[in-house]
C-alpha cells in the first residue's frame, strides 16, 4: 500500500468522529498506521497508538507524536415536529451554522443510521425579537433531515451526535478546504512522518498517537501521555493562517513555513533542536508565539506524570472551526518531513542535551 497525502486526508475529512465519538475517524486511520508501524492499539479514552520500534539497543528511549483526530460538531438536545434542537460539542461560533450541511448519526432504532441534514434558521416570525436580524443563538437553530416527523422519531433520539458534512474540496495552489482539517491535517502530517521513517533508520521508538477529545480539553492526550510516558513529545496542531477576518495576532501565510511554538508549553532546548534540524534541511520555519499556552494537547502532555518535555509544530490554517477550513498541502508535507528528519537524527543520548540552563 502506498500512502498518498491528499487521498488519505480527503478520506479523513469525509468521516465524522466528534470528541468522545472518534470511532469513524479511528477506523480510517488505523489501517494506514498499521501498514506504517509495528503495532497499533487503542487506549482507554479511544486514542489510537502506533509504535515503530527503533534500532537502538533496549531499553530504547521513545518519542511520542501527538495529533488529535477528534472533531467539533453538534449534538441533539430535543426533537420537535421532526426538527432537531441542538447544542455544540467543542467551540463552534453559532454564526457559521445557518445553512450548514450536516450528518445526523441517529441511534434510536438500535443501530446507527446516518441521516444527511442541514442546520436551518427559522423564519423571523418564529423567533424572539433579537432573532430577526442579529446573530442567532444556537438554541434557536434547528436541524432538518428532510424526513417526516414519524420517521425522525423512530431513528433519532436526544444525545445523538451531528457531524459537519461539507465535502473536502481542492482549491487553487495546492490548498484544500474542508471541515475538521483541525486537526486531521496534523494526523496527515504525522502519517507523512511515519511513512518517511518506514524507509529510513531511527534509533528511537516512535509512538504516533491520534488523540481523542482534544476539543473538549485535551482528555485523550492526558491518558496517552501517562500510558506511554515518552522521553519527550512532539505535539502537532493547526495554527492561525493569514486570511480575511484573521485578526491582528501573529499569523502565517499558507504554504510558506512550519511554525514552531515558542512559549510556556514547550521546552526551549527542544525548540532549539527542532529549529536546528529545520535549518540543516532548509525547511522554512517561523516562531509561533504562545506565551501562556497554545490551547492544544501540548499542555496536557507536558504535565503528565512527572512532566514531559514538549516541542510543538503547527500547520497554518484559515477559518479555524468552520467547515471550510483551508490548509496548504505543502505545509502538511513539510511538517511531516521535519518530524521525520528530526526523529531519524536522534542519538540515543539525546535527552542529555534537553537541559535547563
Amino acid at each position, binding site marked *: 500500500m502506498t500512502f498518498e497525502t491528499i487521498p488519505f486526508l480527503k478520506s479523513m475529512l469525509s468521516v465524522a468522529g466528534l470528541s468522545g465519538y472518534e470511532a469513524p475517524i479511528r477506523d480510517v486511520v488505523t489501517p494506514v498506521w498499521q501498514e506504517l508501524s509495528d503495532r497499533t492499539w487503542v487506549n482507554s479514552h479511544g486514542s489510537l497508538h502506533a509504535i515503530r520500534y527503533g534500532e537502538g539497543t533496549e531499553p530504547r528511549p521513545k518519542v511520542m507524536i501527538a495529533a488529535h483526530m477528534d472533531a467539533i460538531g453538534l449534538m441533539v438536545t430535543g426533537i420537535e415536529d421532526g426538527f432537531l434542537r441542538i447544542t455544540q460539542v467543542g467551540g463552534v461560533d453559532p454564526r457559521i451554522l445557518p445553512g450548514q450541511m450536516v450528518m445526523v448519526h441517529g441511534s434510536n432504532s438500535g443501530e446507527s443510521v446516518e441521516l444527511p441534514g442541514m442546520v436551518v434558521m427559522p423564519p423571523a416570525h418564529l423567533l424572539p425579537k433579537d432573532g430577526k436580524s442579529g446573530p442567532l443563538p444556537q438554541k434557536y437553530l434547528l436541524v432538518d433531515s428532510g424526513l417526516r416527523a414519524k420517521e425522525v422519531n423512530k431513528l433519532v433520539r436526544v444525545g445523538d451526535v451531528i457531524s459537519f458534512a461539507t*465535502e473536502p474540496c481542492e482549491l487553487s495552489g495546492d490548498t484544500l478546504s474542508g471541515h475538521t482539517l483541525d486537526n486531521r491535517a496534523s494526523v496527515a502530517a504525522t502519517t507523512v512522518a511515519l511513512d518517511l521513517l518506514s524507509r529510513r533508520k531511527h534509533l528511537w521508538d516512535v509512538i504516533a498517537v491520534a488523540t481523542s477529545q482534544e476539543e473538549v480539553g485535551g482528555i485523550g492526550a492526558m491518558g496517552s501521555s501517562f500510558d506511554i510516558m515518552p522521553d519527550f513529545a512532539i505535539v502537532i496542531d493547526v495554527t492561525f493562517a493569514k486570511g480575511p477576518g484573521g485578526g491582528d495576532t501573529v499569523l502565517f501565510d499558507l504554504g510558506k513555513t512550519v511554525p514552531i511554538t515558542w512559549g510556556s508549553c514547550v521546552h526551549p532546548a527542544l525548540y532549539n533542536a527542532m529549529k536546528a534540524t529545520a535549518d540543516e534541511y532548509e525547511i522554512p520555519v517561523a516562531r509561533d508565539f504562545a506565551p501562556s499556552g497554545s490551547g492544544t494537547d501540548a499542555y496536557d502532555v507536558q504535565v503528565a506524570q512527572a512532566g514531559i518535555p514538549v516541542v510543538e509544530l503547527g500547520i497554518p490554517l484559515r*477559518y479555524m472551526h468552520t467547515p471550510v477550513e483551508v490548509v496548504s498541502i505543502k505545509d502538511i508535507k513539510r511538517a511531516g518531513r521535519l518530524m521525520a528528519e528530526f526523529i531519524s537524527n536522534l542519538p540515543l543520548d539525546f535527552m542529555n542535551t534537553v537541559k535547563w540552563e
Partner: protein
Amino acid sequence: MARKVENSKKYSPRLGKQELDLLTRLSNALAVSGDEQEVREIVYEELSALDVSMHTDAMGNVLVKHEGKGADRLKVMVAAHMDEVGMMLTKEDGDGFFEFVVIGGVDPRQLVGKPVMVGRKHVPGVIGAKAIHLTTKEEREQVLKVNSLRIDVGLGGSKLVEIGDRATFSTSLAVLGPSLRGKALDDRLGVFNLIQLLKNAPENIDLLAAFTVQEELGLRGATVAAYHFNPDIGIAMDSTPANDLPHFDGEANPTHNTKLDGGPAIYLMDGATIGDRRLVKWLTETADAEKIPWQYRQPGKGGTDAGAIHKTRAGVPSVSVSVPQRYLHSPAGMVRIDDELNTLRLMHAALSRLERSILNPQENN
C-alpha cells in the same frame, strides 16, 4: 366550465432516473440573475427534439411555443424563472481573495462558512470566517456583514476567476428520504416542470412557455416575455416559502405561508398580484376532481412572474402555482417530492381541461 377535454392524453409525472438527472443538472447549474446561460443551454438541449418553435429574446428569456390542434385554442403563457440568487465578485483583495456583493435577497447570515463556486467553470471557493478563538464576545454579537466577508479560491486563484464573475453556493442536489435538497430549487423546479409540460403538451391549447430571466431582481424577464406572447392567460410556476417550522417558544405557528406535504400552493393574493378568481377556481376544481392535494398559499407579501404578466398590454388574467419550499435563498432549499410531482400533475390536468369559456365574466365576482 371545467370539463375534461377528450383529446388530453394521460400523463403521470414521475421522478425516475432520467428526471432526477435533469433536475440535478438544473439545480446544480450556476445561473445567477443576469447570467442565465447555463440553464438556457439545458432548456435548449431538452427541447431541441420537440416540435416547437423556440428563440432567445433580447433579455435572454427562452420563449417556446407549442401549437395545439383544433379550433379556438386559448393562448396560455406559463412562466418559470431560470435565474437564482447569488453573488458577484467585485474586487480582488489579495492573493485569491475577492470582495463580493449579493444578487437578490440573501440573508448575510447564510453566507458564512460555506463552500461556493465561481463563474462558468465552477471554480471552487469558500467564504470563511475569523476563527472563534480570535473573536471577542462583542464581535460574536454582531452579524458578519457582506463587506467583511471574502470569497477565497486558494493560492494563485486570481488567475482562475475575475471580478464580474457570478458565484453561488456549491450545494449539490440530494434526495433525503421523501425530500429534495438543492441550492436553486427556486425556481429550477418550475423550469423542470415547464420542460415536462412541453414534452407532454396538451393539444387543446397553445402553450407559450417562458423560461424567464432576472425574476429575482424584479420580474424583469417576464415583463417582456408576456408582451411578446400577448397571451389570453398567464400562469407563473414558482416556489413559495414553507415556514412550517416550530415556534421557538412552543407557540402555534399560524402564519406558515404554506406547509410541506400540503400539495401545490395556489395563490389568491400576494404582494404583486390578485390571482384571477376564475383561474383560482379552475385550479382548485381540477385538483379536487383529480384528487390532487392542494393548499392556498396564505395571502400575503412576495411575488412571482405573474406580477409582471397580469399587467401586460391591456391586462392578462393570471395566477401562480408554487411548490412549497423551506429555506429559499439559502445554501439549500428543501421540498417534498410529492409536492413537486403533484404540482406538475395539477398543471397538466388543469391545462388539459382548459376552455375559452373560462374567460367568461364570473358570476358574483
